[in-house]
């Protein structure tokens, strides 16, 4: 049975995610990726575990935040297909969010 590592963004990071870059202000997509997402994802890859990202509980996510956090992972060198395979996304409050995140990841794959 595959183990799952979990991140609930609204609880473990912030319920008011910010902009794209660290220079934009607090709780940016870049900050989330560098200091939370990438660290946990690498750990999951090493341990052959899946990473569950729960987007519920917050006030919302800007496009720039999501794109920089997840699309940015591909730009940092991680394989897009592997990300899609190893990450489980949960968003019961916002139906379209999961599709958007997947699109940002796969758009970067196409670009590469």
């Amino acid at each position, binding site marked *: 049975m595959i183990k799952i590592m979990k991140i609930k963004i609204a609880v473990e990071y912030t319920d008011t995610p910010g902009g*794209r*870059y660290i220079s*934009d*202000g607090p709780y940016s997509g870049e900050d989330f990726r560098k200091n939370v997402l990438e660290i946990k994802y690498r750990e999951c890859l090493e341990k052959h575990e899946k990473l569950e990202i729960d987007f519920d509980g917050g*006030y919302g*996510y800007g496009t720039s935040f999501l794109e920089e956090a997840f699309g940015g992972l591909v730009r940092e060198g991680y394989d897009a297909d592997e990300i899609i395979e190893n990450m489980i996304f949960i968003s019961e409050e916002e139906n379209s969010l999961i599709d958007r995140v997947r699109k940002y990841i796969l*758009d970067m794959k196409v670009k590469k």
Partner: protein
Amino acid sequence: MKNKKRRTKYLKWLDKRNKKNLQKRTKRKKKPKKKVKCLLYPLSMPRIMSLTENSEQTIDYFNKIIATVNRTIPKNYKAILIDATEVEVITIDSLMYLLAIVISLKNVKGNVNEFRGNLPKNENAKKIFKESGFLNFVQNNIDISNITNKDRLQILTGKDVDGEIIKKLIKFVEEHFGVTRVSTKFLYHMLIELMTNTNNHAYENDYMKNKWYLYAFVNENNDKITITFLDTGTGIPYTVSKKWDDKFKEMFYNKGESYYIASAMDGEFRTQTQLKHRGKGLPDIYAHLINKEIVNLKIISGKGKLDFSNAIKLYDACINLKSNLQGTVYYFELEKERND
């Protein structure tokens, strides 16, 4: 001997008295200070001060202020007088822009170092000045202690992308519409993107540093909230045209700057420059308009204006302006029935 001592004492006293009298006679009298009038360089506001409803005249007025600040006016003028006496209608977008100019003044070298202002004679217009929060930012001796703020979120400003400010606005909407956090997520998306644009895409213009301004107001029936957002960057048309390749420039060159804004909302120009991961903010705003989550959207930037109050299709909303606005104003409304 005794007489000699008395004489010495007398001579000393006489000398002291003579010196005192001499001082009194020769003391310079201070001239009374002449009261110098602080001359004010008057700039009278138009009767209708509104970027959304009277764009050309209002933009012209702001450009006149900026031009006055930037050039050397006669030295006997110590301040610019923003004369609002004859204003009958004023909207928040204009107050926000005026605030942006006043706040930015210290960035400009010139001999004008302050603004003065007066309130309109018209009571409704005066009320808007007082209740908007504009006067909190400017030096004034007007009593605003009795202003109640339950029906509005007074003007807020900042430079960073600030989720906590948006949370404040969300709570304002939740309180007045009785809706939940989940149903207002689209609003959070929009405003975060607008703030992000202020930092990322809105290049600094010559006069004003990049800042955003935000205001919200609920109507008497509690069924409509109007939101105004201003950023003081260079503006969408300039930002967009910098990223275009020649083919795209040719396509839109003669159509006017309103088409530049429309193309940014369409997301077209980004695919031309292969920056697919950027520039999703304006298309998302357009998507919220199409989904009727927001209504009556108006955007003014550079010499372009998009007014969706009577237009459905994107390019039907385009209006080209003669005057250039530095920065971008967004105005839109939330309707309770659509947001339940």
